[in-house]
């Protein structure tokens, strides 16, 4: 299991560092898949499969499509400017603070999957909860997804704006 978590960090680092955007997107898909595997290993089967289906199957593929559509006409080399170094430094300081907090907190040193057999997260229990206690959030999420879908289609539809001629490359 530590190997899985290490691979997850490596894939995430690759998604951040790869200079080619398509490679970075594929590394992101790999990181999502490994994150789903980590959910599975932690006993959250339903969340793991949703993670793989939604994030690997939809989000990463969507990002890859947009990368291919918005292929830049001129390649800009992303040289780290002063602001970028400041941002990286701030992020590293925050990460160090988080690691310090985790290390200094007295956490349960036992293995996580101890009580897994006693309380499995079955899909049946999750479904019962979804149409029971979580019914209103579920409906709101459906509304949000519909609104986001309609809004995204409206924003990205292929139509010349007012006073703008049809581009030759579309």
């Amino acid at each position: 299991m530590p190997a899985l978590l290490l691979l997850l960090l490596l894939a995430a680092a690759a998604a951040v560092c790869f200079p080619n955007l398509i490679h970075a997107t594929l590394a992101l898909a790999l990181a999502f898949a490994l994150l789903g595997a980590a959910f599975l290993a932690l006993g959250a089967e339903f969340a793991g499969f949703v993670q793989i289906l939604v994030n690997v199957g939809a989000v990463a593929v969507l990002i890859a499509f947009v990368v291919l559509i918005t292929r830049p006409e001129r390649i800009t080399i992303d040289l780290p400017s002063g602001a970028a170094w400041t941002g990286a430094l701030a992020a590293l300081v925050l990460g160090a603070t988080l690691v310090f907090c985790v290390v200094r907190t007295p956490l349960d040193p036992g293995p996580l999957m101890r009580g897994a057999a006693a309380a499995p997260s079955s899909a049946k229990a999750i479904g019962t909860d979804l149409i029971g206690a979580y019914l209103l959030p579920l409906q709101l999420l459906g509304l949000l997804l519909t609104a986001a879908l309609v809004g995204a289609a409206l924003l990205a539809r292929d139509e010349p704006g007012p006073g703008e001629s049809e581009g030759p490359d579309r």
Partner: protein
Amino acid sequence: MTLSMVLLVSCGLFTLGLIAALTHTHAIRILIGIELMLGAANLNFIAFWRAGVDPGALVGVMTVLFAIGIAAAETALGLALVLLVRRRSREVDVDRIRELNG
């Protein structure tokens, strides 16, 4: 796999996402960073749910499910905005985008 090990990995994942979001100027790379940070938060939820006293209460799993759904909506809208800005101003670099009005 102990709780602190998962939490440390989550810290690393969040830091990597924050580095991506703060250092890059390409809009899609910033989105990738945001996705990584959301994944780190979800990993934390699952770990604390598993370490909690009552894993039969599915609060952690439910939070992760809703977070994944909301993150999908956010990504779809963000990518649509990238497409729109790219079509209007031929630019995907957030430092060079100057105009936002219709």
